[in-house]
């Protein structure tokens, strides 16, 4: 099976330093970039599928030219190669541009299965998987907690998380699956994996390399614009309580009652 995992380098949420710069774009100098958390779950799922069914994994990212450092971690986890689409004209791309570029890059990769995280920790939009599936006319199996492909029969089953339970979905391959943490914790790269990753290929492609696209793309044609960035309204000061349990419980109840939070 040929699996492509969509990966987005994002500012490390754990750094606490992720922010927008004065140009209102992500300040890439402020926080180190990491693979988006949900994309790591997608990659882990891909690694397990290849272990069970054979095949190879390609990482695909549309990101700034510094992305290879971040993609290297995915290669160290076990992906076979990476394709990075990077072009100065793509800075400030909106969602339709991003989708058009990723779709063009995906067409060349002829994947049986495309995996993506359900959303990214920077934007949280979570609309790119469905937009990509629609563009490429691939079946979309979203919010996956388990993925069971049957390559011989040319189909895939997915356990999709829904409110209060799950659906079992089935679609023909090739298909696009958006992945959740329920698929299982991503592995840490082994020392051997880290060494091997150094010689794995990261193919860097510009917009021109992708050939003609069905629509203009990039920051210059973005149809959304940021008009203001503000700090959140400040929370009030914290009231700290150190008291025996019964007294502390009474304090909590009174605090909640004063804020009309008791039913």
């Amino acid at each position, binding site marked *: 099976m040929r699996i492509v995992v969509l990966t987005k380098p994002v*500012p490390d*949420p*754990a750094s606490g330093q*992720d*922010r927008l710069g004065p140009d209102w774009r992500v300040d890439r100098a402020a926080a180190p970039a990491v693979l988006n958390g949900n994309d790591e779950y997608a990659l882990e799922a891909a690694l397990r599928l290849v272990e069970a069914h054979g095949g190879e994994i390609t990482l695909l990212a549309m990101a700034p030219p510094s992305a290879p450092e971040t993609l290297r971690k995915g290669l160290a986890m076990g992906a076979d190669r990476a394709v990075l689409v990077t072009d100065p004209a793509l800075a400030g791309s*909106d*969602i*339709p541009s991003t*989708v058009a570029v990723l779709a063009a890059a995906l067409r060349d990769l002829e994947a049986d299965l495309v995996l993506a995280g359900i959303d990214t*920790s920077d*934007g*949280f*939009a*979570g*609309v*790119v998987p*469905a937009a*990509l*599936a*629609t563009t490429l*006319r691939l*079946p*979309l199996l*979203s*919010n996956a907690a388990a993925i069971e492909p049957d390559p011989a029969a040319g189909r895939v*089953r997915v356990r999709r998380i*829904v409110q*209060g*339970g*799950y*659906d*079992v*979905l*089935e*679609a*023909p391959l090739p*298909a696009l699956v958006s992945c959740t*943490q*329920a698929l299982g914790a991503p592995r840490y790269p082994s020392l051997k994996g880290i060494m091997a990753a150094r010689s794995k290929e990261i193919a860097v492609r510009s917009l021109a390399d992708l050939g003609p696209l069905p*629509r203009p793309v990039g920051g210059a044609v*973005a149809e*959304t*614009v940021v008009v*203001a960035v503000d*700090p*959140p309204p400040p929370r009030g000061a*914290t009231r*700290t*309580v*150190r*008291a025996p349990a*019964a007294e502390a*419980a*009474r304090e909590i*109840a009174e605090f*909640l009652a004063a*804020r009309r*939070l*008791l*039913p």
Partner: protein
Amino acid sequence: MSGRLVVVGELADGRPTRLTTEVATLGRRVAEDLGRPAVGILVGPDAAAAAETLAGFLPEVVAVDVPELVDLAPAPRVAAEVATLVVPEDGPILVGASPDGRDVAGALAVLLDRAVLANAVDVEVGPEGPTTVTPIFGGKSIVRSRFVGRPGIITVRPSSVDAAPAPAAGRIVGRAPAAASGGPTVRRLERVVEASGEIPLEEAPVVVVGGRGVGGPEGFALLQELAALLGGTVGATRAAVDAGWIPYARQIGQTGKVVRPRLYLGLGVSGAIQHKVGMQTAETIVAVNRDPDAPLSEYADLYVVGDLFEVGRALVAELRGRREGGGG
């Protein structure tokens, strides 16, 4: 004719979801500010019946009954039907940011070739049209964005708006399905119900959250009891989910759900950044933790230093006492 503001609804068990009524309430207000008519669209196996409820929130609801959606993953077909009903002058198009709503919004963005502003908690209307208000990086910044040119698709976060019915019920227009069903088909073979009747985490007004300190699955029984007394539901940190004490669907944080309840009550939760991004916009944050210096001690409204089980049990007794005492 000027275009309409469109609200795309979502159905669950034959009824519009609560998020749908929230989005409809927001859409009604934004449409008024824009001077545009608002219309809701419902697509599903029993859309006509569900439209009665949604018509309580919007002046017009178009219902498209698609019986075969019972056996299909709904989003692609919902988006395809909505796309046949939207004309170029229409916009913005509001969709709830639920899992299905995100899928519908993504598909619609392509079918209608419209831009997307995601995760709005509010929409303001100025001289340049609708402006979305969206917390990013887990609430560290509030970004205001607008469309360049024609208005596109806005996804709206759950629990951002209080649902309020319109003064008068709207009219319902039934439409036959019109989308070509040429797209790839995803069949639903089975629906497995694990926890029926549970309030969705994103919709709960009160969320009682357990972390590593809860110590095991049995510890969550106390949280369930508190949640029941407070009229809410139970959530968890990634540590508690990874330990297998509670399902992933209950996880709040970076790779889980983002919640915005009226009350967040954390027990044995340290409140590290990966969790904070999922809950820091809660209206009121109360925490109980043995560690006086946990991150939550810096952004909770009320922080109790103590054992979560001792304080939790005492709180159960206190809340029960108040209830029996006629509300204290």
